[in-house]
């Protein structure tokens, strides 16, 4: 809901305040009408009357207690009023020294479509001249949040000369929110901007109107009035690594026209030569076209230790173009070839005889440009041009012919400089692969070359002694291992399976990989024709000379839609500052959509008299929270008196129900969760002195039954014993009367549902005599039986295979009333499961787990009989079985 204005006072009607008002009105109505309680008079004839009761009784208003009601009305009124968040627009007197005027300059690419930088600067100065003397004027631009405060027009002019259109886009909302945090209180904000929808999108300037006056300064249109804008949308690299050309698919787009466009697309290295130029044409009715542009890979040379230059695609057309900044589109240079120096003596003209042929092909397939030499020339070779030197040596040529003296010289020079503490000069030395040219090479020469490359302290030193014994591959491996090289390839436990050995010199500027097998397909080396490129590629990737899939190293060039990200720390690490500055123009700017004028702030006009001596700013009234708090207390007090107090008194007046209420109140503190507690009650001549803590813990953990760890030794005549669901009788002495039959009390208890467990029972005759009581009526299949394997005792909780019993003894049960009434355990089971278990001599020693299971099953039978017979449990039982 919108605001309601009462002169200068305005309120916000929200859903919360509407609900508040409704509930307060309801409260008033209830107070007046529902409080009414009439006296009831008995009229017996109504019993036989069939009167229509649908006629509504006339409502009668009974005045409430006035003081309470007044408090309630006042409190609810105040709640509603303060809930409306009243606020008043306060006009503060204009004071130049205290008023803040801020200029925000939008320098996004879309501005350049209609306004030249010069006209822009003029406009800013014009507004500045109008505002001068009316407050402190500060300025920021969309590119930088640095606050510029101008004291004079000259200072401003000077500052404006340093500002220019940037390539990044602009989101006014994001940028201004960031800048206002640092700007502090502003009374009037001038936004110098065009009507570009991309810039204004998402900027809720109405929210800021509460705190400041916002003025949109429309920029002068001094550029040719065209809506046609040509730009590069994206560029995709098409070529593979081994391609001899670099092919790109560039999407050229045009906005603001349906006539299409044509022109030229140029590809160039940043600050370098033009690589290719192709014409393009966007047909009418379309807004984009794909243009394939390619150039020879050899045209691009990238030195090893220099960052690869950027690739710039530029579109140009003869016709008018609104934004020039988005005509150029930058991207990373992909697919540039690196150079490799391969030194190997020629084996002959036949391909198979040439040891370096396959290696050269492999390198070319992997996208390298290979320079093949038979031997090292006298003249030095540029170490920067070739990042990798591959030397296939040890053949018929002498050591000096295949081993580069230049490396040894430069290495020693660096060592010397490092020793003198001078700054290391020069780039990194190339990576060197030293490999035997064929299996039967002169490993001594190879070893000597290795020593000259990495180990020697002086130039032109003779062959080291350790190389003299290197006559074959195995000593060669041994020497490499002893010189501190690290094994490459093969199993770590078997160094003779190694492919190569890798070492760095002590200045860390030179890396040498000494191979133990020739780098060519062959039976001896174990490399196949298919395996050689894979091995070489893996090694090159490990050396950092070859990156993986080109699509993975495609580093997308940034396209910043908002310059605030320039200042945040959240920038992606790989984005260099150059790339951010040279960001591609965001598509939102290039498309040049115009925002609706209704959605923009009031425009600044030159006719503005500037004499208004006050500025509007909205100021909330004093914090209504204390009043709201007070009102809430009043309302709560009224509710308490009317509701709670009356409720309590009416409860107290319930004299007729006093007992029930008292019982209810007393039961509340004694509230406890419903659980079943069972105690083991024993009967017998000798008391059971143990406790059942372990068993109780197990029972509680497995079932919902709480077993008391203390065992109660009972007397048959006890009420407590008679109240127990089960009794553990030790022998028959306590449960039999004269003649060996069960006492009448026990019979009655059994018939009530008791479950008797007799331990260490005597013979069958005694048991028969025990139950020979006329009060126990037996049906068919009832009476004394041995516990069969499918008895409910075997499956009431755990599934038991057997019951523990001494040889020749059986568990027996007395069945009557459709259930097991008496269980006879031949031995002292209870003692064997106590906390100090007593082993039964004849019984095979069992586990505690078995006893626990048996006990729980007995407990379950005692409490539930055969509950599984009850069909209602069937779904749950089946669920558990599945």
């Amino acid at each position, binding site marked *: 809901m919108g605001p309601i204005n009462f002169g200068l006072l305005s309120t916000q009607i929200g859903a919360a305040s509407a609900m508040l008002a409704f509930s307060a009105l309801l409260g008033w109505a209830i107070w007046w009408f529902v409080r009414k309680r009439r006296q*009831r008079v*008995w009229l017996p004839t109504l019993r*036989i009357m069939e009167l229509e009761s649908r006629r509504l009784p006339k409502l009668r208003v009974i005045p409430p207690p006035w003081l309470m009601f007044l408090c309630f009305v006042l409190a609810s009124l105040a709640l509603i009023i303060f809930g409306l968040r009243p606020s008043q627009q306060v006009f503060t007197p204009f004071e130049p020294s205290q008023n803040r005027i801020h200029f925000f300059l939008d320098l996004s690419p879309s501005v350049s479509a209609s306004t030249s930088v010069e006209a822009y600067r003029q406009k800013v100065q014009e507004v500045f001249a109008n505002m001068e003397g009316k407050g402190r004027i500060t300025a920021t631009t969309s590119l930088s949040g640095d606050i510029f405060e101008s004291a004079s027009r000259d200072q401003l002019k000077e500052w404006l000369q340093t500002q220019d259109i940037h390539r990044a886009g602009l989101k006014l909302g994001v940028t201004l929110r960031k800048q206002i945090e640092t700007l502090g209180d502003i009374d009037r904000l001038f936004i110098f901007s065009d009507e570009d929808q991309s810039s204004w999108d998402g900027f809720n300037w109405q929210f800021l109107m509460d705190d400041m006056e916002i003025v949109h300064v429309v920029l002068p249109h001094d550029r040719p009035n065209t809506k046609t804008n040509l730009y590069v949308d994206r560029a995709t690299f098409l070529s593979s690594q081994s391609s001899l050309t670099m092919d790109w698919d560039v999407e050229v787009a045009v906005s603001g026209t349906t006539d299409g466009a044509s022109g030229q697309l140029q590809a160039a290295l940043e600050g370098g030569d033009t690589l290719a130029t192709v014409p393009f044409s966007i047909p009418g009715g379309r807004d984009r076209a794909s243009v394939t542009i390619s150039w020879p890979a050899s045209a691009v040379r990238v030195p090893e230790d220099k960052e690869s230059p950027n690739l710039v695609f530029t579109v140009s057309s003869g016709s008018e173009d609104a934004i020039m900044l988005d005509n150029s589109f930058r991207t990373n240079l992909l697919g540039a070839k690196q150079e490799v120096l391969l030194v190997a003596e020629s084996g002959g003209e036949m391909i198979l005889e040439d040891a370096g042929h396959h290696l050269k092909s492999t390198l070319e397939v992997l996208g390298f440009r290979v320079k093949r030499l038979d031997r090292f020339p006298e003249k030095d070779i540029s170490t920067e041009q070739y990042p990798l030197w591959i030397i296939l040596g040890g053949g018929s040529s002498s050591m000096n012919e295949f081993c580069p003296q230049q490396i040894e010289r430069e290495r020693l020079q660096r060592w010397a400089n490092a020793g003198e503490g001078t700054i290391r000069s020069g780039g990194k030395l190339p990576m060197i692969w030293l490999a035997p040219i064929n299996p039967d090479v002169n490993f001594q020469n190879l070893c000597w070359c290795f020593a000259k490359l990495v180990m020697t302290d002086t130039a032109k030193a003779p062959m080291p002694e350790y190389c003299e014994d290197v006559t074959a591959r195995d000593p060669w491996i041994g020497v490499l291992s002893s010189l501190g090289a690290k094994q490459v390839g093969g199993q770590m436990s078997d160094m003779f399976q190694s492919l190569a050995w890798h070492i760095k010199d002590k200045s860390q500027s030179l890396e040498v990989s000494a191979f133990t097998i020739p780098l060519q397909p062959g039976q001896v080396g174990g490399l196949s024709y298919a395996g050689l490129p894979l091995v070489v590629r893996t090694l090159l990737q490990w050396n950092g000379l070859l990156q993986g899939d080109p699509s993975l190293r495609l580093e997308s060039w940034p396209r910043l839609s908002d310059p605030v990200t320039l200042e945040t720390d959240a920038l992606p690490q790989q984005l260099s500052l150059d790339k951010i500055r040279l960001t591609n123009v965001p598509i939102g700017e290039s498309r040049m959509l115009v925002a609706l004028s209704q959605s923009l702030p009031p425009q600044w006009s030159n006719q503005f008299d500037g004499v208004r001596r006050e500025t509007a700013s909205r100021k909330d009234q004093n914090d209504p929270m204390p009043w709201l708090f007070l009102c809430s207390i009043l309302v709560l007090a009224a509710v308490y008196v009317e509701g709670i107090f009356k409720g309590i008194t009416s409860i107290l007046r319930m004299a007729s129900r006093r007992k029930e209420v008292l019982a209810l109140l007393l039961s509340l503190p004694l509230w406890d969760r419903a659980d079943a507690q069972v105690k083991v009650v024993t009967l017998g001549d000798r008391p059971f002195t143990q406790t059942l803590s372990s068993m109780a813990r197990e029972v509680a953990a497995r079932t919902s039954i709480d077993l008391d760890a203390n065992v109660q030794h009972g007397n048959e005549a006890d009420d407590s014993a008679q109240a127990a669901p089960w009794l553990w009788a030790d022998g028959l002495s306590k449960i039999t009367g004269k003649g060996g039959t069960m006492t009448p009390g026990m019979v009655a208890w059994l018939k009530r549902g008791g479950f008797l467990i007799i331990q260490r029972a005597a013979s069958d005759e005694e048991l028969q005599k025990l139950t020979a009581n006329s009060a126990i009526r037996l049906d068919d299949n009832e009476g004394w039986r041995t516990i069969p394997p499918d008895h409910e005792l075997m499956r009431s909780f755990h599934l038991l295979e057997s019951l523990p019993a001494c040889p020749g003894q059986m568990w027996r049960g007395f069945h009557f009333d459709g259930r097991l009434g008496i269980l006879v355990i031949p031995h002292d089971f209870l003692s064997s499961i106590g906390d100090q278990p007593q082993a039964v001599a004849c019984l095979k020693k069992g586990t505690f787990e078995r006893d626990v299971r048996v006990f729980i099953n007995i407990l379950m039978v005692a409490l539930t009989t055969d509950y599984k017979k009850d069909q209602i449990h069937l779904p749950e039982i089946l669920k558990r079985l599945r």
Partner: protein
Amino acid sequence: MREEFGENHLSRVKDLSPGLSWDLSFKRYKNVMRYQGSHILALRRPSRTPAFSRKYVKGDPVHLIDWKSFARTDQMLIREQRDEASARIVICLDASDTMQWPDERLHEVLGVKVPSKWEIAVRVLLNLAYIHLNLGDTVRVYLWTRPESAAPDFQVPLATSSDVLKLYHIEEDRQFSISSLCEEGRNGDNSLPSGDYAYWISDGITRRSFDWLFERFRLTRMIQVLSSLETQVDWVSDEHCYFDEGIVKKEYLGAILKYGKAYRQKLEAWQQEYRQKFRHAGGGYQLVTEQTPIATYMEDLLIFP
């Protein structure tokens, strides 16, 4: 009689006492010779007293032939008259809970004490018993306290009119409560005998089937005792809710009861229902409230269907 007491006479049923005895066959009293009882037997006997006459039938006493009439009309006529005998009167009194209304609670609300329906019923009962006993009839009084019962719960022994007067004074002292009358009664063998005439004194609110009554007695009469507060609801106001929680929980405001004479119409329809029920069975019906003039009550009592 109406002239004797006058319409505006202060004597109302609320002041009815057994001693205020009027012959139930007052009008015929002047015309017929009666010596005993109020009941005229259906069996007629030939008589010289010319009450009835019929043709001579062989076997009739010859000496009682109206020879004068034979001389005039050439027809032999026999004069007959019916003997009177002690009638067996049973007075049944409904002792339902609703009979105790208006109660103390209503007295507090209205600020006026109105005799309860029970008091009126007892006054009517004793009055009737007194009249019949004086006429030489045998009177038995039974009380019904259970709603759905054909057998009475108590029998109040009343053998002579002095018993009636004695009981009246006792009840008056005890301010006419159900319990006091029940104390006077006995609840031994209370099976209802058959008889000649039965009065059913009740407010009728407890619904009963009267078939058993109609079967046992040749003549029946219902005296419906209502309070004037039930027949006239002008006194009700919207200050209170009027309810009955006996069977159906209903609650009304005074405005509803008074609206469009709905209550009055329903009440009359209900009374009409009883009137028709008893008349169809050959009985009589009359309404008595504490405001009914005794003359009206007596006159209605003499009207037989």
